[in-house]
C-alpha cells in the first residue's frame, strides 16, 4: 500500500514556468514517428506498427508489455511519439494570440510597427521586473493600438492594412482597406492588368481591398523572422515562448495511458483522442502524397483544411465556428481540463481520499457535544497508524492479536526497521503481536477518544467540518449530539455525513486545537453561539423552568441525577418553599445545571429578554414602577451568580443565535470547556426529563374552541366587508392615493394591510385562547419550533397567499380562477384562505395555496444554485487573504489589502458586545456579582481616580487601542455619575471616612443597596476588560479572507423569499435578497433599482420639497398643457398648445414660456421633456420614520429613483454632502473609490439586516477592500478576479480554465505557487496562511570570503 502521508518532503515546487513546446522538443521527447492511420493490424488485431496505438507508446491491456521500457500496464509511465505535419497548422488555443501579433507586425518585414520613439519606452516598461499581469495586458493593448494606427511600415516601407479573422481558422489581411491608401491600391491593381487581360475571371477574384489570406505557412514565415526584441514588444518572453511555436509543425502523440482503449467483447472502443489522432495521421499522409505527386491547389487546400480542423477539434472540440453538426460531442484536451468534473476542479483542487467514511446520521443526546458515535463496522475499516512505544505496546499487541475482524484490532503492521508492511488478515497474528517492536507502526482500528473530522455537505462555512472524538458504538449510523446540528445544518431525515481520520500526530493536534467542536461554539460570522440547545431540548428546558414547576425532594434529586451520569458531586440547594412542605422549583434545577456543586467555578451573571416577553403593566402595580423582571409571563431572565432569579429557559436563553444566552455567557466568562460541559448536562437532562413528561401533538391540539371560532369568523367577515368598501371606494376613485401610487396600487396596499392584520389578530386570539398545554403553542412560545403564524394557520386561518410579493394574479381572463366573477378583487378571489388546515381548504383555496407553495419550492431550487456559485466566487477572490505579524491583511503575493484588519485588529468570533470585545454593562454586573459587596464603597471621584490609576499602571492597557480605553473610561464615568447622584440624594458627603454615622444609617444602607462600588469590583472589571481585549486580538496567520467569504456567502443560502421591500414609501421597490447581494459583489453597471436618497436644505417645508422635486423630475409636455390641438389652415398645419400655468404653479415648476419653446425646438420626434434630469425616473417626497445622520424623524426627504447622482447632488435645494446612492459604480465615478468602498459596505450590511441577519462589519469591510484595493471597483466575477490575481493555476481552477492556460504558455508566464489554490493543486502546504505561516528565521550562514580567481587580474 502507498504511504498515505510522507513525513519528509524532499522537494517542494517553488515555481511553475509555462512555455511552449518547440518542434525540436516534441521530437526529442518522442520514441518514433506515427505514420499510419490504422489502429490495429488485421486479422491479428494487434496495435499496428507506427500507428497511434503502437506498443512503443506503452500499453493499457493487462498481460502485455510496453515495447519501449518492457514494463507492464501498471508500471509503464507511457512514452510519446510524434506526427510530422507536411504543412503547418494553427493551434486553436493560440489563434487569438496569433491574430494579435499579426496586427502588430508588418506583414512584409515582420517588425513590430511601433514608432521608434515609443519603442524604447514600451520595451523598458515590459522589462520591468515583477510586472503584474494586469499591467502587462494594458501594455499589450497600448502596443496594439499604437501599431494599428500605422499603415506604412517605417522599416521596409510596405503597406499594411487590417488583419482580421475571416472564418474559424482563416486570417485575412486587407492591405488596402484604408481610404488614404487608395492610390497604393490602384497601383497594386494595375500590376495585375496584363494578367487580367489573359484571364478575365481574375478581376472578380482580386477584389478592391487587396485581401490576402494569411495561411499557416505565411504566418510561420513571418513569425520566424520576428526578432527577440520584437517578441518582447508584443508581451512575450522570447526565451520561453517564441511566436512560431503558436503553429504546429509536429504533433506530440501522447501515451496510450491517457487515452485507453476499452475492449468490449471483441470490439474495441477508442478514446476520442485516439480517433482524432488517427484522422490527423491520415489527413497528413494524404497531403504528403499530394505534395509528392502534385495535385491541383484546391484539393490540396481542402486536405490542408481538413487536417487543420482535425487538429483544432483534437485540442478543443467546442471551439466556436468549427463544431461539426450532428455528431456526438467529442472530448478534446480542453474538455478534459474544463468544468466541474474536469482535471482542475475534479482532480487537482479536489481529490478523493482514503481513511474516510460516510453513512446516515442519527441523534444521541447521551453523547458529549464533541463526540461522534462511529459504528463498529466503520471503526474496523478506518485505521490510525500508531507507532509502538513502551506505553502502548500492550494495547497494540492486543490489537494485532485481534486482527482486522475483531474491533479494537489492527489491519496492518509495518516494521520500523525495513518498512515492510504486513496484512493481518492472513498469517500468524499471535506471532506478529509477539514480535512487535518499539518503533513499529500498527495500523490499528480507531477507538474511543481518537480524533476525527466530521463533515456535512454543503460545506458553506468552516463549521461544516469539525473535529470530534470517536465513540465506537454498535449499529450502523454515525451519531451526534443534537446540539451540534446547527453548524452542520443537519437533521435526521436521512442526512448522511462524512468522517475523516487524520493520519499523523501533527494533523490530529491541529484538528484538535483549531477545529474542535468546543472551540467552534460560536460562529466567526458575528460571534453568536451556533452550538446550543435545539428543538426538544428547548421545549424541555422551557417546561422545566416554568414558574409553576415544583418538586419535592425525591423528584428534585432524581432530576438532578439526570444531568450528570453519577459522575459529578451535586449540592442540592435549599428548597425555595420550606413550609407547608419542602418544595424546590424547576428554576433551581438550572441553578444546579450551571453550578452543580460548591467547587465548580462558573458564576453566570446575565440579564436578558426571553423569546416571548410581555412587559409588566405598570397599572397593575401600585406604588412602584415594575422592572421587566416582573413580566407576567416570566419572560425576563435574570441570573445572579448562577442562580436563576426569574425568567424561563427558551430559544433566546439556551438556544443558538444570541450572545446574551446562558451558553454564550458561560463561554465568554468561563471558557469553552465549562460551556460545553453545561451543554452536555442540559442535553442529558432535557432528553431524559422530556421522555418522562411526554410531549406529543394530536388532533386535539389543533381544534379551535367555540370562542376562537366565532371571534375568527367575525374578524374575517369584517375584514371582507372592509375590503368590499375599499373596492367600492376605489371604483369611484375616492381613495386618497398613497405617495407615488395610483388608485389601483393604493387599493392593493390597503387591502393587503387589512388582510394581513386579520391573520395577525386571529393569531393573537389563538395564543390567548389555546390551552397552556397545547403542544404547538408551547413550541411557538419557547421558540423551539414553529411560530405563532404556524399555529394560527393550523388552528384558525391560513391567510393571504402571496405570489411574487402580490396577491394571487390572474391566471385566466381578468380573474384568478373561473370560479369568480371577472375583475373581482375581493379577498377570496385573490387568494385569501379563510379556512385553517384543520377545517380544510376549499378547492379554490387549495389551488391558491398550492401556487404559493410551488413558488417557494422553485425559489429555493433556483437560489441554491445561485448562492452556491456566489459562494464559490467569493471564496476564490478572498481565499488567500491572511493577517500577518504586523496585523496587516495581505494577499498571497504580499500586497496589502488592509493595514489593520477591520481597522482595529479584532477577531469577530471573540467579540461579545455589538462588534465590541465586551458588553460593558453586563460585564460590570458580572464583576460586581463575582467580587461580592464587601469592603468600603467608593465615592464617585474615588472611582474615577482609581480607574485612571489602574489603567495608567497596567501594561495590558497600553496594548489596547485608545478608542477602547476611552470607551472603558466613558462607561466608568456613567457608573460614577449615577453613584454621585444617588449619594447626593442621600446626603452622603463626598469624602467622609466615617460614613456609618448613627443618624445616617438608613441613608447609608439605602445607598449601599442602590449603588455600591468597591475597589475590588473595579479591579475585577478592569481586568475583565483588558483581558478580553487581549484575547479578541486577531491571530497572525488567520485566514480572514476565507472566513469573510464564508460569512457573507453562507447567510445568502438562508435568505428567504423576500426580493423586494418598500423604501419608506409604497411602490418604491428596492431589490433585496440574493439578487441584490449578487448585484453588489458583481459590481454591476446597471442595477435593478438605483435609488438616491437626499437631504433637503429646507427639510420641514412641503412646498420646498415640491420645488426640488420639480427640478429633479422630468416634466412632459402633456402634464403642463391643458389643450393640444391640431390646427389645419389654408397656409399650413400646426399644433396649438395651451400651457396650463395653474398646473405649473401647482407642481412648483420653474418654467417660463421661453423654456417650453426651446424644449420643443430641441426635441426630436416630438418626445418632449421640459426640465429635470433625464436619468431620473421619478422623485418621491418621503417623511423620515426615524432619526439618522441625515436628519430627524418627521423631516422631509427626497427619494430619487434612477441614476444621475452628480446632477442630483448639485441641484439647488439639496444638501449635496448628505446625498447617498446605492449604485456602486456611479458612486465610484462621481465621488471616487473610497466612497464606492463605503457604499459596498453599507449596501451589503443593509441588505443583510433587511433579512434579519447580522454580519460583523469587519468581514464586509474586507470584501469592500478587496473590491476596491486595486484603485477601481472590481466585481467578484471572472473578470474582476483575473485582475486581482496573477496566479495561473488559481485562475485556471476558477473559470475559463483553458483560456488562462493558453495565455500562460503563450506569454511564458510563471506561477510562484504562493496562494492557496495553487498550493493545493501542487500538494504543497499553503505557505502564507494558518499554521504554516510561522517560519524560522536564522542568521545567514557565514560563508568564507570569495577567493580571488587566479587569472582574475588578467581579465
Amino acid at each position, binding site marked *: 500500500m502507498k504511504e498515505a502521508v510522507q513525513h519528509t518532503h524532499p522537494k517542494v515546487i517553488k515555481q511553475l514556468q509555462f512555455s511552449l513546446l518547440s518542434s525540436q522538443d516534441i521530437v526529442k521527447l518522442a520514441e518514433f514517428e506515427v505514420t499510419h492511420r490504422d489502429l490495429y493490424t488485421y486479422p491479428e488485431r494487434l496495435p499496428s506498427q507506427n500507428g497511434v496505438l503502437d506498443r512503443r507508446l506503452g500499453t493499457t491491456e493487462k498481460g502485455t508489455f510496453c515495447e519501449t521500457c518492457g514494463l507492464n500496464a501498471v508500471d509503464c509511465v507511457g512514452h510519446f511519439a510524434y506526427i510530422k505535419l507536411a504543412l503547418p497548422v494553427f493551434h486553436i488555443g493560440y489563434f487569438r494570440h496569433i491574430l494579435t501579433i499579426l496586427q502588430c507586425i508588418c506583414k512584409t518585414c515582420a517588425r513590430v510597427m511601433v514608432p521608434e520613439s515609443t519603442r524604447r519606452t514600451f520595451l523598458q516598461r515590459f522589462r520591468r521586473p515583477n510586472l503584474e499581469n494586469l499591467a502587462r495586458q494594458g501594455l499589450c493593448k497600448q502596443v496594439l493600438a499604437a501599431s494599428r494606427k500605422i499603415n506604412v511600415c517605417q522599416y521596409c516601407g510596405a503597406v499594411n492594412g487590417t488583419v482580421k479573422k475571416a472564418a474559424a481558422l482563416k486570417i485575412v489581411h486587407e492591405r488596402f482597406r484604408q481610404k488614404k491608401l487608395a492610390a497604393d491600391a490602384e497601383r497594386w491593381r494595375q500590376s495585375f492588368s496584363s494578367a487580367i487581360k489573359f484571364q478575365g475571371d481574375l478581376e472578380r477574384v482580386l477584389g478592391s481591398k487587396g485581401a490576402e489570406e494569411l495561411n499557416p505557412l505565411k504566418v510561420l514565415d513571418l513569425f520566424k523572422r520576428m526578432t527577440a526584441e520584437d517578441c518582447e514588444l508584443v508581451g512575450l518572453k522570447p526565451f520561453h515562448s517564441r511566436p512560431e511555436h503558436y503553429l504546429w509543425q509536429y504533433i506530440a502523440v501522447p501515451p496510450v495511458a491517457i487515452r485507453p482503449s476499452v475492449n468490449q467483447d471483441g470490439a474495441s472502443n477508442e478514446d476520442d483522442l485516439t480517433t482524432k489522432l488517427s484522422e490527423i495521421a491520415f489527413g497528413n499522409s494524404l497531403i504528403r502524397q499530394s505534395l509528392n505527386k502534385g495535385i491541383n491547389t484546391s484539393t490540396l487546400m481542402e486536405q490542408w483544411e481538413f487536417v487543420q480542423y482535425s487538429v483544432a477539434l483534437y485540442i478543443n472540440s467546442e471551439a466556436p465556428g468549427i463544431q461539426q453538426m450532428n455528431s456526438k460531442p467529442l472530448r478534446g484536451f480542453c474538455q478534459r481540463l474544463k468544468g466541474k468534473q474536469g482535471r482542475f476542479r475534479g482532480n487537482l483542487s479536489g481529490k478523493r481520499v482514503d481513511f474516510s467514511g460516510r453513512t446516515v446520521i442519527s441523534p444521541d443526546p447521551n453523547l458529549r457535544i464533541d463526540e461522534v458515535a462511529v459504528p463498529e463496522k466503520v471503526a474496523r475499516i478506518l485505521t490510525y497508524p500508531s507507532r509502538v512505544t513502551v506505553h502502548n505496546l500492550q494495547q497494540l499487541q492486543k490489537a494485532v492479536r485481534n486482527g482486522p475482524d475483531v474491533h479494537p484490532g489492527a489491519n496492518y503492521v509495518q516494521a520500523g526497521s525495513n518498512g515492510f508492511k504486513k496484512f493481518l488478515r492472513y498469517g500468524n497474528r499471535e506471532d506478529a503481536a509477539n514480535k512487535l517492536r518499539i518503533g513499529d507502526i500498527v495500523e490499528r482500528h480507531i477507538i474511543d477518544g481518537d480524533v476525527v473530522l466530521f463533515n456535512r455537505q454543503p460545506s458553506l462555512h468552516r463549521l461544516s467540518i469539525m473535529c470530534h472524538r470517536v465513540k465506537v458504538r454498535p449499529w450502523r449510523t454515525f451519531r451526534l449530539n443534537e446540539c451540534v446540528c446547527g453548524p452542520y445544518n443537519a437533521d435526521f431525515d436521512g442526512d448522511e455525513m462524512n468522517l475523516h481520520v487524520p493520519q499523523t500526530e501533527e494533523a490530529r493536534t491541529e484538528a484538535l486545537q483549531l477545529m474542535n467542536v468546543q472551540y467552534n461554539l460560536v460562529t466567526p460570522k458575528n460571534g453568536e453561539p451556533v452550538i446550543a440547545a435545539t428543538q426538544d431540548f428547548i421545549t424541555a428546558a422551557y417546561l422545566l423552568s416554568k414558574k409553576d414547576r415544583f418538586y419535592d425532594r425525591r423528584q428534585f434529586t432524581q432530576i438532578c441525577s439526570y444531568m450528570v451520569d453519577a459522575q459529578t458531586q451535586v449540592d442540592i440547594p435549599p*428548597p425555595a*418553599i420550606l413550609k407547608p412542605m419542602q418544595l424546590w422549583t424547576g428554576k433551581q434545577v438550572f441553578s444546579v445545571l450551571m453550578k452543580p456543586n460548591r467547587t465548580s467555578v462558573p458564576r453566570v451573571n446575565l440579564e436578558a429578554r426571553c423569546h416571548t416577553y410581555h412587559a409588566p403593566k405598570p397599572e397593575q402595580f401600585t406604588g*412602584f414602577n415594575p422592572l421587566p423582571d416582573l413580566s407576567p409571563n416570566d419572560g425576563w431572565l435574570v441570573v445572579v451568580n448562577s442562580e436563576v*432569579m426569574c425568567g424561563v429557559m427558551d430559544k433566546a436563553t439556551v438556544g443558538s443565535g444570541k450572545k446574551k444566552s446562558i451558553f454564550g455567557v458561560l463561554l465568554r466568562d468561563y471558557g469553552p470547556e465549562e460551556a460545553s460541559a453545561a451543554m452536555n448536562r442540559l442535553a442529558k437532562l432535557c432528553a431524559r426529563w422530556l421522555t418522562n413528561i411526554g410531549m406529543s401533538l394530536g388532533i386535539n391540539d389543533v381544534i379551535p374552541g367555540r370562542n376562537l371560532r366565532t371571534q375568527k369568523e367575525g374578524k374575517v367577515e369584517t375584514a371582507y366587508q372592509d375590503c368590499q368598501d375599499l373596492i367600492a371606494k376605489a371604483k369611484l376613485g375616492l381613495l386618497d392615493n398613497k405617495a407615488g401610487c395610483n388608485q389601483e396600487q393604493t387599493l392593493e396596499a390597503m387591502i393587503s394591510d387589512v388582510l394581513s392584520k386579520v391573520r395577525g389578530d386571529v393569531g393573537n386570539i389563538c395564543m390567548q385562547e389555546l390551552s397552556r398545554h397545547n403542544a404547538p403553542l408551547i413550541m411557538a412560545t419557547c421558540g423551539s419550533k414553529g411560530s405563532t403564524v404556524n399555529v394560527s394557520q393550523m388552528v384558525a386561518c391560513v391567510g393571504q397567499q402571496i405570489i411574487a410579493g402580490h396577491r394571487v394574479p390572474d391566471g385566466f381572463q381578468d380573474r384568478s380562477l373561473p370560479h369568480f366573477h371577472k375583475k373581482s378583487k375581493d379577498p377570496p378571489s385573490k387568494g385569501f384562505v379563510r379556512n385553517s388546515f384543520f377545517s380544510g381548504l376549499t378547492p379554490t383555496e387549495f389551488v391558491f395555496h398550492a401556487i404559493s407553495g410551488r413558488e417557494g419550492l422553485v425559489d429555493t431550487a433556483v437560489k441554491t444554485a445561485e448562492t452556491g456559485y456566489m459562494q464559490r466566487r467569493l471564496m476564490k477572490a478572498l481565499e488567500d487573504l491572511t493577517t500577518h505579524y504586523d496585523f496587516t491583511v495581505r494577499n498571497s503575493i504580499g500586497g496589502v489589502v488592509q493595514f489593520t484588519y477591520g481597522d482595529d485588529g479584532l477577531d469577530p468570533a471573540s467579540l461579545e458586545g455589538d462588534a465590541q470585545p465586551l458588553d460593558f454593562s453586563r460585564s460590570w454586573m458580572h464583576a460586581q456579582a463575582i467580587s461580592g459587596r464587601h469592603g468600603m464603597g467608593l465615592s464617585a471621584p474615588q472611582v474615577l481616580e482609581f480607574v485612571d490609576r489602574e489603567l495608567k499602571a497596567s501594561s495590558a492597557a497600553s496594548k489596547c487601542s485608545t478608542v477602547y480605553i476611552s470607551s472603558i473610561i466613558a462607561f466608568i464615568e456613567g457608573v460614577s455619575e449615577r453613584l454621585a447622584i444617588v449619594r447626593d440624594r442621600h446626603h452622603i458627603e463626598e469624602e467622609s471616612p466615617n460614613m456609618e454615622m448613627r443618624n445616617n444609617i438608613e*441613608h447609608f*444602607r439605602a445607598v449601599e443597596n*442602590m449603588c455600591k462600588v468597591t475597589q475590588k469590583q473595579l479591579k475585577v472589571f478592569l481586568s475583565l476588560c483588558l483581558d478580553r481585549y487581549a484575547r479578541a486580538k486577531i491571530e497572525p496567520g488567520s485566514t480572514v479572507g476565507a472566513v469573510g467569504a464564508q460569512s457573507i456567502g453562507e447567510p445568502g443560502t438562508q435568505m428567504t423569499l423576500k426580493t423586494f421591500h418598500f423604501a419608506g414609501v409604497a411602490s418604491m421597490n428596492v431589490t433585496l435578497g440574493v439578487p441584490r447581494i449578487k448585484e453588489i459583489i458583481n459590481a454591476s453597471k446597471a442595477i435593478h433599482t438605483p435609488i438616491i436618497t437626499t437631504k433637503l436644505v429646507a427639510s420641514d417645508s412641503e412646498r420646498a420639497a415640491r420645488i426640488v422635486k420639480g427640478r429633479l423630475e422630468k416634466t412632459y409636455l402633456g402634464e403642463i398643457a391643458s389643450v393640444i390641438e391640431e390646427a389645419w389652415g389654408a397656409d399650413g398645419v400646426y399644433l396649438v398648445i395651451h400651457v396650463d400655468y395653474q398646473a405649473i404653479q401647482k407642481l412648483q415648476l420653474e418654467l417660463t414660456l421661453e423654456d417650453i419653446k426651446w424644449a420643443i425646438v430641441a426635441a426630436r420626434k416630438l418626445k418632449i421633456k421640459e426640465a429635470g434630469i433625464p436619468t431620473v425616473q421619478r422623485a418621491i417626497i418621503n417623511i423620515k420614520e426615524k432619526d439618522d445622520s441625515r436628519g430627524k424623524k418627521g423631516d422631509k426627504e427626497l427619494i430619487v429613483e434612477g441614476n444621475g447622482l452628480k446632477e442630483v447632488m448639485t441641484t439647488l435645494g439639496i444638501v449635496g454632502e448628505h446625498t447617498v446612492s446605492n449604485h456602486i459604480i456611479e458612486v465610484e465615478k462621481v465621488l471616487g473609490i473610497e466612497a464606492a468602498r463605503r457604499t459596498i459596505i453599507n449596501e451589503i450590511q443593509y441588505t443583510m439586516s433587511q433579512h434579519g441577519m447580522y454580519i460583523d462589519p469587519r468581514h464586509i469591510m474586507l470584501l469592500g477592500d478587496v473590491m476596491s484595493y486595486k484603485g477601481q471597483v472590481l466585481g467578484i466575477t471572472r473578470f474582476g478576479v483575473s485582475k486581482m490575481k496573477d496566479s495561473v493555476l488559481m485562475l485556471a481552477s476558477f473559470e475559463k480554465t483553458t483560456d488562462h492556460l493558453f495565455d500562460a504558455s503563450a506569454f511564458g508566464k510563471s506561477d510562484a505557487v504562493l496562494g492557496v489554490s495553487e498550493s493545493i493543486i501542487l500538494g504543497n502546504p499553503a505557505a502564507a496562511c494558518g499554521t504554516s505561516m510561522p517560519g524560522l528565521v536564522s542568521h545567514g550562514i557565514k560563508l568564507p570570503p570569495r577567493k580571488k580567481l587566479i587569472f582574475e587580474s588578467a581579465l
Partner: protein
Amino acid sequence: MSKSANILFDDMFAVTSVDSGRFERVARLQAKSTNFGMDLSLDYNHEIYPLRPSDTITLVLASSLQLAAATTTASTAKPGEEAGASASRETWRPNMGPKGLEEDYEFVMYGKIYKFDEGAGERVTAYMSFGGLLMALSGSYRHMSGIVLGENVYLLIRKR
C-alpha cells in the same frame, strides 16, 4: 421594631388582588401594608397556600430561622463568603437542629434579594426571588434598612 435581630422586616399586608390566571400553581398577589405604607407584589404557590383578596397577612423577612440571634448576621459575615449561605446552609434538611422561627408561620420560602430599584422620592423597591417566585417590596428606604442587596432571606407569612 423586631423581636429578634434575625428579622429584617416585619409588617402586615392587606391583599388587594390575586392573579392566578397565568400559571397553574402560582399566583401573583398585590398587597398594601397597613403600617408603613409599603406595596408588595408576591408570587406564591396558591395550590398549597391559597390566599384571597381581602385576606390580611403578616409578612416577615428574616436572615435566619434561628430564634436566638447568636450567629453572625449577614451584613457582618466574612467577605468572600456567600453571606447567609454558610450560616444556614444545612438548616433546611429535615430533623436538623431545633425548631425555629418557621413554627409560627404558615408559609415559608427561602430566596435571595437580588435587585434594588429607585422610585420616586424616598421610595425604593427591593426585588427578591424565591427559586423564581418573585417578590417586589416597595416603600420608603427608612423601613427597609434591614434589607441588604445580595443576601439570602427567609420569607415567612401567616394569615390574620
